[in-house]
């Protein structure tokens, strides 16, 4: 019993160390700052489909390849700040919506992938979403897009913002229950 217990402790210690190391490594990466903007060639907004309906043989759904951006806490924290600074909050509040639609729910008028959100910010949308093309640096658009996904819990909790600088309105993004996206077009 006692020897087994010693073993247990040993294993537990080793496991704990491994977990701590992994967490440390992860938390190092989660803070990593990529000072270089993604090259423009990485995405052309015209490659982003607004509709999942594709005539003919179905191909892989577009988007999703830029998700690594939102695995980084620095990007999401920047995105959160920029979301206020560029007046996104003026129209979408802190996710509940206002002039524009809510961003913390499971409904995505123009697609839920980070590429869709990026394209929406850059292109604008006909019912009132302004086009921010050439108004916001590309890297910052990606950071805002990543943050927008964090509002409904779609980004990894290890990277999502854990607190807000402003008045407490709702749980921080890290604590938001994941809202499974429904790419609906009502």
């Amino acid at each position, binding site marked *: 019993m006692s020897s087994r217990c010693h073993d247990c402790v040993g294993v537990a210690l080793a496991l704990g160390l491994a977990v701590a190391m992994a967490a440390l490594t992860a938390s190092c990466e989660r803070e990593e700052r990529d000072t270089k903007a993604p090259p423009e060639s990485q995405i052309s907004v015209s490659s982003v489909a607004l509709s999942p309906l594709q005539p003919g043989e179905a191909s892989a759904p577009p988007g999703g390849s830029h998700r690594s951006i939102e695995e980084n806490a620095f990007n999401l924290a920047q995105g959160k700040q920029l979301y206020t600074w*560029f007046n996104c909050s003026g129209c979408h509040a802190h996710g509940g919506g206002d002039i524009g639609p809510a961003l913390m729910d499971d409904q995505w008028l123009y697609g839920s992938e980070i590429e869709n959100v990026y394209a929406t910010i850059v292109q604008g949308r006909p019912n*009132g979403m302004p086009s921010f093309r050439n108004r916001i640096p590309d890297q910052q658009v990606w950071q805002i897009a990543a943050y927008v996904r964090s509002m409904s819990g779609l980004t990894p909790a290890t990277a999502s913002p854990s607190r807000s600088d402003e008045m407490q309105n709702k749980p921080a993004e890290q604590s938001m229950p994941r809202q499974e996206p429904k790419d609906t077009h009502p």
Partner: protein
Amino acid sequence: MRGKPVWSIGLIAMLMVGAGVAKAQVTVTAPASAAPADDGNWVMPAKNYASTRYSELDQINSQNVSGLRVEFTFSTGLVRGHEAAPLVADGTMYIVTPFPNYVFALDLTKPGAPVKWKYEPKPVSAAQGVACCDFVNRGAALADGRLFFNTLDNRTIALDAASGAELWKTSLGDINKGETMTMAPLVVKGKVLVGNSGGEFGVRGWLTALDAASGKIAWRAWHTGPDSDVLIGPDYQPFYDKEKGKDLGVATWPPNQWEIGGGTAWGWISYDPDVNLIYYGTANPGPWNPEQRPGDNKWTGGIFARNPDTGQARWFYQVVPHDLYDHDGINELILLDMPVGAPGDAPGNRQTRKVLVRPERNGYVYVIDRTSGEVLSADPFAYINSTAGVDLKTGDIHYVDAKQPVMGQVVRDICPTAPGAKDWNPSAFSPRTGLIYIPHMNVCMDWESQEANYIAGTPYVGANVRMFAGPGGNRGELSAWDPVKRAKAWSIKEDLPLWSGALATAGDVVFYGTMEGWFKAVDARSGAELWRFKAGSGIIGQPITYRGPDGRQYVAVLSGVGGWAGAVVAGDLDTRDPTAAKGFAGAVPDLKERTNKGGMLYVFALP
């Protein structure tokens, strides 16, 4: 707040019904020149230039109103907030809808009132992105066989009322600066008076007069900037010293801030033909965060009297200098002639004065001499803790220090809230009771100022706001206000905020709607509920009444929840974020369970 039985909502608080109700009020009247004898039509949202929203029709009265039933309905096919008043002239009803601002003419001479014509202005869709508080429209105006209305994308359009043919359209603003138009025009002496919206976008406010025949701009008065732009000249004779000085529209702002300083005009205009002055209010300064605009911020948050021919200002009274709470000064101005004296004065000591009565966003009923701009009284009609009265000698309002917004701090429990004790939704006045029927709110807020960045065409606010019910928990109230006694005669507490207009009739019935969809008739003298009807969607429109081609009296109202108060339903907002809809979501987290979207006209009559 939730799960209250419906029948407990309409609790009637009989506050001060005295024996004198019937006899004391005959002395309060609307000037005959501004409120002429009733012809049974309803050609402007306020009914007349005095803005009484009172009809002399009395077929429907407090004795028989309980028999009111639906005569016909009409779907607008739209799901945004329907704030407009239907208009009626000579057997036709006219409705202007929220964006995309359809105009429908309904033929009242035929059974079921079929569509006579429909006009589609096709405003640009992007305009929806710069409309602060839903894509509403507050109505049209009829004059000389023409119908005038505004589109969300800043066009004023004149139609031939008989055919719906477009006579002219004039483009007046730019959505890329955040401008929209939502107000109902007023036609005075061949001029169509219109103003812009966009106080949450750093626009520069104005009122513009268009020639009713041609659509050409006759004059434009800006509400910030140099006197030459504001149309302040030799005619200008304000009552208070604080309104005097050169180019105050520049001097009371940080450098160049006036260029994006707000002061729009999206509410109501009244007109007194005897003194030839129009009266209207200017909206909030921008941004909401007051620390970014030290100074009085003229000419925002006040009331202008102007000559309609030239636009020249006669007087101005700034109700809220250096506004702290988004308290637009655009509410209705009811023109009355009434005895004015100190409280307790014998009636014989009172003089009859030409006044305008303004139930203000900040929670006071202002009685102002409309010839001079002197404030005669300012009494609270709702719970207030952010100000402590108005100094009638100087015209100054006393702000309470502890409730002033400070950047980086959450200032809690400010009453009334940003949309005020009362927003745009207009009151009615009955000369039979001498009472003003004020549909209003009881909502407070927490406010955190933040630095606002000006980016043209995007919101310029700089505040996080969350709202909640005020003391007592009822979020709405209909108050019958006695302007002579300067007190409430009675009031009805409503669970949800009141966002509909009121209508008073010679049948001693007052009509109003709730955001849950109840359309109610109450006794004008006692407030006792006489009748109610549940509409398909919450009511935020303005009820009217008219005499139909068959000689019967009808009552009409648009249902269709929305506007700032109903944005959580109209825009499918997520109320888990109480700051949604600029904080209104916090006050109405239950609204989505209580009503649904959908624009529908209801017209009622006795069998």
